[in-house]
């Protein structure tokens, strides 16, 4: 093990660099106790994907939340003049990262969590926030597993898989479709919706499931799944995964001559689906909560978002914006930053005005009405097709 002088020096420099970085992180850690619970800023934690394939959505969520924070601060903050502060941490859609970030947020003294996009990364965060008695207002992640544990600090402001499936079935019945193919990408979120839709369809009995299949995400060719769908010959294909694969599948289905309806779930509602599938995406239906584009009076909101960030809002921007507003409302109602008081205030919320409609939580801490509507792609963008009212 002969170490030359030069490499010893290099090693020394590397160590010094490491120490320098760790020193700066210690500074952060040392700063943990700053800002006691009673004075200073009120901290909101937002654990969303900043890196990895879901990073674009994380940015939409982070920006929208920041917009809400800025607006509330400009209007005088919460609790008689205390300012809100948004702590954004990366989850990278990974359980380990999610746990580290949640712990970091708790260490930094967050009083409410307004993050949560990937269900898989959000699930392991629940016990950490629960232990610290930090209420979680989850804007995007909507797996049933999140509320199944019955933790009192967990609130979902996105519609659940069950509500989305109900909306999907409603539309199928309304449009007179009799056979459907359900396709998912084996992700917990997509499987949740497919399983729920299948159960509802079978309970109802008017529609038959011609095919229920899964694809592997991240591939570039889905002709095997397309062939299966073509031979099952359904009148409607319901894709519950994300838009990257969704766009490819739509493209290949149309190119193979499929003439039935294609419907996607909210994970695929993104302008990129038209970029991927081109003209083939025209007329594709989607089950989704209202987006700013489809909402009356959403134009002003979009304008202020574009003003602040120089780009248009995207999926889950609205929910994140509303989650922050809801958090601020609950803190004001509670009159303190105490976890139990905020949870009680959230449970007592009745008809809080949100983009998705007036909000009241069920006993399970999910939305009393999911607010799902049917959108369709028109001229390359999603527009309201059917409000299902």
């Amino acid at each position, binding site marked *: 093990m002969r170490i030359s*002088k030069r*490499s010893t020096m290099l090693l020394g420099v590397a160590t010094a660099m*490491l120490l320098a970085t760790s020193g700066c*992180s210690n500074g952060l850690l040392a700063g943990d106790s700053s800002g006691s619970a009673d004075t200073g800023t009120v901290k909101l934690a937002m654990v969303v994907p*900043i*890196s990895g394939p879901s990073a674009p959505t994380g940015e939409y969520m982070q920006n929208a939340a920041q917009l809400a924070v800025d607006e509330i601060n400009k209007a005088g903050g919460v609790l008689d003049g205390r300012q809100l502060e948004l702590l954004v941490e990366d989850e990278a859609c990974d359980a380990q990262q999610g746990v580290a970030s949640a712990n970091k947020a708790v260490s930094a003294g967050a009083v409410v969590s307004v993050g949560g996009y990937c269900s*898989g990364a959000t699930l392991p965060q629940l*016990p950490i926030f629960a232990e610290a008695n930090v209420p979680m207002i989850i804007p995007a992640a909507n797996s049933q597993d999140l509320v199944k*544990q019955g933790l009192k600090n967990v609130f979902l402001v996105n519609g659940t898989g069950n509500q989305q499936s109900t909306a999907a079935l409603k539309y199928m019945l309304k449009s007179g479709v009799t056979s459907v193919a359900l396709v998912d990408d084996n992700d917990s979120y997509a499987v*949740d919706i497919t399983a729920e839709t299948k159960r509802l369809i079978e309970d109802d009995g008017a529609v038959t499931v011609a095919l229920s299949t899964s694809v592997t995400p991240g591939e570039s060719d889905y002709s095997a799944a397309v062939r299966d769908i073509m031979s099952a010959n359904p009148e409607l294909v319901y894709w519950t995964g994300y838009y990257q694969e969704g766009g490819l599948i739509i493209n290949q289905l149309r190119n193979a001559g499929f003439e039935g309806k294609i419907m996607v779930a909210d994970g695929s509602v993104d302008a990129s689906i038209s970029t991927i599938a081109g003209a083939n995406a025209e007329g594709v239906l989607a089950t989704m909560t209202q987006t700013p584009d489809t909402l009356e009076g959403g134009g002003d909101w979009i304008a202020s978002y574009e003003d602040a960030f120089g780009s248009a809002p995207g999926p889950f921007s609205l929910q994140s914006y509303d989650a922050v507003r809801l958090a601020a409302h609950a803190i004001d109602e509670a009159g303190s930053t105490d976890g139990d008081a905020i949870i009680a205030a959230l449970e007592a919320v009745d008809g809080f005005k949100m983009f998705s409609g007036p909000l009241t939580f069920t006993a399970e801490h999910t939305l009393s009405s999911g607010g799902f509507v049917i959108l369709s792609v028109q001229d390359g963008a999603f527009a309201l097709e059917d409000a299902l009212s």
Partner: protein
Amino acid sequence: MSGSTFKSQAPRRTGPAAAWVSGLLENKYLGWIALAAALLAPLLTASPYSLNVMTTAAIFVMLAAGLNIVVGYCGLLDLGYIAFMAVGAYTAGIVSKAFELPLLFTIPAVLVMTILAGLIIGAPTLRLRSDYLAIVTLGFGEITRITANNLSVTGGPSGIYGIPKLLTFGDFSVHSPAVFYYVTILIVAFFVLASARLGKSRLGRAWRFVREDEDAAEAMGIHTYKVKLMAYIFGAVWGGFAGVLFASHLTAISPKSFIFLQSALVLMAVVLGGMGNMRGVVVGALVISLLPELLRDLSEYRYLAFGLLLVVAMVFRPKGLWPAHGHEEERKKKEPEQTAVDAAVSRGESR
């Protein structure tokens, strides 16, 4: 954290500083010093975040120690090592949830399952060599993850959540982050020490012989297949126990935690640290698991910086930060006045 007693092979240092550094690096108490540092660290910073990061790092060290047995000692390139962690984590999770046991009591089941997994994966694949072995282990790693994704007993894509605590005595439970950190550190230290000791055992020497030249080892009477299988099984057990700690730490496991990237990161830790040198591997594992956290302030540039630093490290230290000795030290008698004749006599060469 090994109590290893490597001595300098080529102690021709240029200056007293370098000699001092090398003396320090090869100090046999270094492992104990590292353990003491790990035990004292929470006194400096004990926020939930830092405890969480340190616990994750310790679990990663254990994984790297396990993979070091397979890749470092025995030279079997394994690209699907995380599968063993998955087996351990899932076994612990399923058994403890089904019988409502604290995780500690699932250890016999985990032991049996990981040994079985090592045998099932090892028995057919170890007949292959080098690249072929790497490809097949990659396949098995993915098969394990996809199986977990599709079985209902493993909870499908959402996995298992609400996993019980490691141990509960009435009101006292090993779940406060600080207590769990100490328990983890002690368990990991034990396994790292065991792994370092294994490397110097009779079996460890056989592993290194197989790594250097499999045919020569076979010719010298080593049952190479059996020896390689042993390396695989030891690696599997280490990975499995790391899985138990992982399940207890996160309280939720899902197939997404066991993707190929994780296998690659563990392998990266072993290669970066220095294949075969337990001390180096511990350092490598700490770098790989702590660096992304330390770079958190760079937000979206975090992994870019991480990758660049790794490339830089490998360019300047191609054999790893702290490579293993190329050869085993000769065993010498302690008496300095021993003559060549005495040595010959003691080797039984007298007529």
